[in-house]
């Protein structure tokens, strides 16, 4: 674990960004060394974040990588074992109650009441946030039309589809116009069409000045974020904008097309310079260490005459490159690139 930590340390970008911005208030969330342990195991380890206001920031990682734990610490539901947290200029733990009115939280699991109707659920939330009858009525009308729930006011929340439930949950989480919105895997129970729509709404909110922190394990969702952090086993493996991450990836992507790709994959993967090989239809997508100056030339004797093309890296390639222990194999210049890129970002 510790060896991995050391090698990963070089890869972690954004640390410098957090350092240079300690006085500025342009960040909605700033953490330094945020750590949370459960029974001696670190669910989140030494996490540094600097999330600018008015952006959508993503946590990308597999289940159990510490996304939810991080969000819970940032919403004040969990105390960090160590580290500093500042949310909207307030220090956590300590200012939770103050922050309640300024943040919204959409939980991973649907957390409104199944046996209350859409209107009843929203009325309840409105009253909890202290809206009076007139304000409640106005805000509800606004939300129902905005989130396409008009005509469903009387439907029980429990009988709605995944997409409808998710829109209701987003309506409830944004009812009080929060400055900062936390979304914990908001689209895990939603079909792709609804996901697209959902993201449009997030950008609408963002355009109105809301800062959004969203966790996901979908690459296409992560790619929509302004900035993102790739988490694995509680450790941040990389961060930056999707474009920066793809540009700075410590590997190059070559697609091999031809026959008998399963066998080829086995032989390629045994080479330490090949970080990963994954079949996509009739092509094999191979990630080659960036220490290899000319990946096409290096690969051609190894693929028995199959056709080779170098392609643009995707976010998935970035994810594969810096997780699953492959980060250890990153050559020094790989991490160099990431740090440079981070400095560009500031």
């Amino acid at each position, binding site marked *: 674990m510790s060896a991995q930590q050391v090698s990963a340390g070089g890869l972690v970008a954004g640390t410098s960004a957090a350092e240079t911005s300690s006085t500025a208030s342009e960040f909605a969330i700033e953490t330094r060394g945020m750590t949370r342990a459960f029974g001696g195991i670190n669910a989140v380890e030494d996490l540094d974040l600097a999330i600018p206001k008015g952006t959508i920031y993503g946590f990308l990682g597999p289940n159990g990588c510490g996304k939810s734990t991080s969000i819970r610490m940032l919403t004040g539901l969990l105390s960090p074992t160590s580290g500093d947290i500042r949310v909207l200029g307030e220090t956590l733990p300590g200012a939770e109650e103050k922050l309640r009115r300024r943040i919204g939280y959409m*939980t991973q699991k649907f*957390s*409104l009441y199944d046996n209350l109707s859409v209107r*009843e659920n929203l009325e309840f939330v409105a009253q909890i946030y202290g809206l009076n009858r007139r304000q409640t009525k106005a805000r509800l009308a606004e939300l129902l039309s905005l989130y396409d729930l008009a005509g469903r006011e009387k439907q029980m929340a429990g009988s709605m589809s995944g997409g409808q439930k998710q829109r209701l949950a987003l309506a*409830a989480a944004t009812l009080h116009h929060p400055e900062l919105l936390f979304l914990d895997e908001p689209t895990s129970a939603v079909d792709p069409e609804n996901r697209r729509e959902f993201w449009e709404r997030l950008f609408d909110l963002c355009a109105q000045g809301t800062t959004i922190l969203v966790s996901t394990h979908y690459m296409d969702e992560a790619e929509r974020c302004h900035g993102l952090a790739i988490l694995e086993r509680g450790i941040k493996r990389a961060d930056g904008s999707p474009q920066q991450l793809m540009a700075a990836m410590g590997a190059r992507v070559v697609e091999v097309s031809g026959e008998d790709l399963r066998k080829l994959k086995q032989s390629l993967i045994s080479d330490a310079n090949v970080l990963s090989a994954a079949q996509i239809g009739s092509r094999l997508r191979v990630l080659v260490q960036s220490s290899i100056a000319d990946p096409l030339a290096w690969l051609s004797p190894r693929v028995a005459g199959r056709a080779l093309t170098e392609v643009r890296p995707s976010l998935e390639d970035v994810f594969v490159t810096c997780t699953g222990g492959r980060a250890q194999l990153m050559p020094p210049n790989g991490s160099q690139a990431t740090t440079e890129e981070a400095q560009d970002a500031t």
Partner: protein
Amino acid sequence: MLRRIWAVVVKELRQLSRDRMTFGMIVMIPLVQLMLFGYAINTDARHLPAGLVNLSDSAYSRALVKAVEATQVVDFKNRYLSAAEAEAAITRGEVKAVLYLGADLEERLVRHPAFAGQAYFAEPVGQWLVDGSDTVVASTIRSLRQMPLDEIAGRAVKSNPPSFEVVQYFNPEQRSVVNIVPGLLGVILTMTMVMFTSAAIVREREQGNMEFLITTPVRPLELMLGKITPYVLVGFVQLAIILTAGHLLFAVPIRGGLDSIALAAMLFICASLTLGLVISTIAKTQLQSMQMTVFILLPSILLSGFMFPYEAMPVAAQWIAEALPATHFMRMSRAIVLRDAQVSDLQFDALWMIGFTCLGLLVASLRFSKRLD
């Protein structure tokens, strides 16, 4: 603050009104329990199965056996030839008691004051062998000790006047149900009130509602007050059901004022609800909250004076009983319903329940933290 409490109250009421099963239980639990206890619990034992060893076999002995059966305390099911055989039958559980009449029954009978009307040097006419493990059975048989023998003698026998005369107030016919119904109020309210609220917080946690709720500005005390208020109504519905059914079905007199009953019930309902809330903040799952409810419910039935007189318990048990709201309510409800007492006559119990409620609310609010760790 009031708006937020009201929001929680409305939400709970709406959820409750949609839960058909729970709604049905609110009405059915008191009715069914009242029927069960009202008809089934009877401390006056009747028709105990008994055996007979009759070595006398005379006209007198047959008359004596008839007279004993006429009391309805025992039914002679079996006859045995010897005391040893009878003892074996008691051991097997065939009979609860055996009447042993010796061969010298007639000689004993003629010398007995209840038969002869004169005080001779006397011995009992027969002997009861009793399975004394059940104290109710034993004491019922003991009541036969002084049975008059007029019928066997065939004439009125002048017997000694009793040392005391006993006048039985409030329940002259000595019907157990009169005492049971006001007590049942306490048991049923304990059961439903503690059970409903003990699940209240845990359920929200299990269903995932809590994680959202605790990121809102709702304060713990507001949540607690909002959660228990609807159940105060439920408690009063049950109170009305039990008292009405008890009065109509079992002719239980309601001597006290309804205002006193309502006030006492209000105090008890609040105390039970906060007890449930405290459980709810301790339990992690609904199953655990059920187990803790039963843990409270059993002593509330057995130690509160519902089943056995409080005064007969050892001091340590009385201390435990005093800690339970049910004990105080049992005292109050019986006093008010049967003896027309006022709440002001029962200040200690009333104050104790107010104190319990405040302490319970405080503990529940403190224990309920708006955090997940």
